């Protein structure tokens, strides 16, 4: 009897102690927002993350190990890791002119190698294996995933500093996308056979916007028409969020997915600022959560039921935390200056990201190269978009 009483008291004391500790836990991991993102210059965390990526691009063996690990799960991640890194370094080149030569050299190395691989091994090298199992509706077979992101890489490089060799490459890629939009009966292009992605469309349109900035072309009508179409056809009626993937006949495939939407809302900022803000606010309300000081994100709104997939990552039960959506939420929170959410996400990252620091470099063991590159992008985004917005604002005043 005495023993049972001791057990009961012991358990009660543990519950009380847990109730004291758990709400305080986030304080251990809470850091000032300036450690992750700064208005000017490069934040300490961005510098450390970038140092790790730069090391990967100077050490071929290390890079091979990292890419092999990712490609074993998803070949797309290899490609997206390159894209996010190029966009990040372009922003960093504008933030930190002293280190610009190093960043530009790495950007050029990545772009050149990516273009070489695309040419030598074909687009399927960077796509998941099911891409070659189906048939593309539009001919010839092209993936907007590759065309859009490569165009945005080239444009970002040129926004950071002009490089004549890339001018023709960007124009060629933009012309291909524009011509395909012109041939598409529904103004949507495939990334995989009869599978179109909101993420890829928005980034391709961003690349067009940048090409207009750089070369004086004008794709504003296409962009306007596409946004109008998306508002009419590609909005989930329950949540008001854009669906992430759909067929060439607008049939939604994956519903509104956080792993896409946070980036989509950021990409929309230079296409339609009000629509972008509306999408972020909805995503924040439907997908973003802060519990006991820790921020995280769901993959789907409550109104949509979907299975975990390669984009969402494993879904942690009860809280329905998606690793993919939570990682990409950094981009949304940073782009829309949602500091309370960004700070809480950063606390979660330091809590369960399992950081590994070596000689001034930082990586998150729970992440991978593409995840860390997306975090780096969240920590550095701003200058590229600001250049476009500044030109638009100046144009509007005239």
């Amino acid at each position, binding site marked *: 009897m005495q023993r049972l009483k001791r057990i009961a008291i012991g358990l009660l004391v543990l519950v009380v102690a847990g109730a004291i500790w758990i709400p305080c836990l986030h304080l251990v991991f809470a850091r000032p927002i300036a450690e992750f993102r700064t208005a000017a210059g490069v934040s300490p965390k961005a510098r450390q993350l970038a140092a790790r990526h730069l090391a990967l691009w100077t050490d071929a063996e290390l890079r091979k190990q990292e890419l092999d690990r990712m490609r074993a*799960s998803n070949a797309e991640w290899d490609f997206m890791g390159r894209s996010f890194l190029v966009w990040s370094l372009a922003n960093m080149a504008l933030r930190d002119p002293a280190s610009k030569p190093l960043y530009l050299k790495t950007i050029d190395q990545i772009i050149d190698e990516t273009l070489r691989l695309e040419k030598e091994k074909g687009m399927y090298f960077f796509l998941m294996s099911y891409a070659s199992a189906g048939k593309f509706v539009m001919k010839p077979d092209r993936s907007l995933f590759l065309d859009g992101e490569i165009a945005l890489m080239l444009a970002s490089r040129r926004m950071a500093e002009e490089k004549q060799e890339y001018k023709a490459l960007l124009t060629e890629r933009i012309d291909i996308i524009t011509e395909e939009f012109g041939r598409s009966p529904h103004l949507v292009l495939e990334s995989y056979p009869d599978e179109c992605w909101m993420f890829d469309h928005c980034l391709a349109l961003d690349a067009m916007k940048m090409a207009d900035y750089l070369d004086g072309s004008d794709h504003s009508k296409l962009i306007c028409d596409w946004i109008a179409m998306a508002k009419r056809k590609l909005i989930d009626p329950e949540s008001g969020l854009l669906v992430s993937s759909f067929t060439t006949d607008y049939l939604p495939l994956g519903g509104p997915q956080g792993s896409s939407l946070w980036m989509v809302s950021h990409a929309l900022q230079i296409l339609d600022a009000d629509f972008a803000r509306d999408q972020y606010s909805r995503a924040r309300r439907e997908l973003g959560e802060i519990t006991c000081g820790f921020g995280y994100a769901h993959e789907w709104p409550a109104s949509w039921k979907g299975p975990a997939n390669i984009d969402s990552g494993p879904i942690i039960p009860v809280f329905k935390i998606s690793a993919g959506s939570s990682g990409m939420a950094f981009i949304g929170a940073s782009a829309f200056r949602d500091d309370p959410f960004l700070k809480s996400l950063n606390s979660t990252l330091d809590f369960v990201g399992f950081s590994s620091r070596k000689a001034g470099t930082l990586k998150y063991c729970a992440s991978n190269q593409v995840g860390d590159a997306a975090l780096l992008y969240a920590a550095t985004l701003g200058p590229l978009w600001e250049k476009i917005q500044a030109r638009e604002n100046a144009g509007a005043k005239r």
Partner: protein
Amino acid sequence: MIKFFSRHAKAKGPLPSPGYFLQWAGLLFGLFLIANFAGMRQYTSVLNGTVGSTNLDWQTASFLGAAYVMVYLAFVLGTPTLMIAAGILALCRKFAGNKENHDGPKSSA
């Protein structure tokens, strides 16, 4: 092996000994150190679906990653909780001891 609510506890009376909680806290800390020194942290990439190492098969790498996460969470959540619990118990025992001293030994008469 430690017996959490051992009959041989140094504590007498209805309250468990704070020492048990501290022993468990120490055990969790020790496990965490071992997992770290064993290099299991790098296998936590299983959380995003990436294999921790191409030198190990997927199942082993996943097991190591999941085991590290468990040990880490047990350490981060459990150790401070156990230490706080030990503190609460120590306070209770002190309070109970003071009360007993203040009230004096109870007479059976």
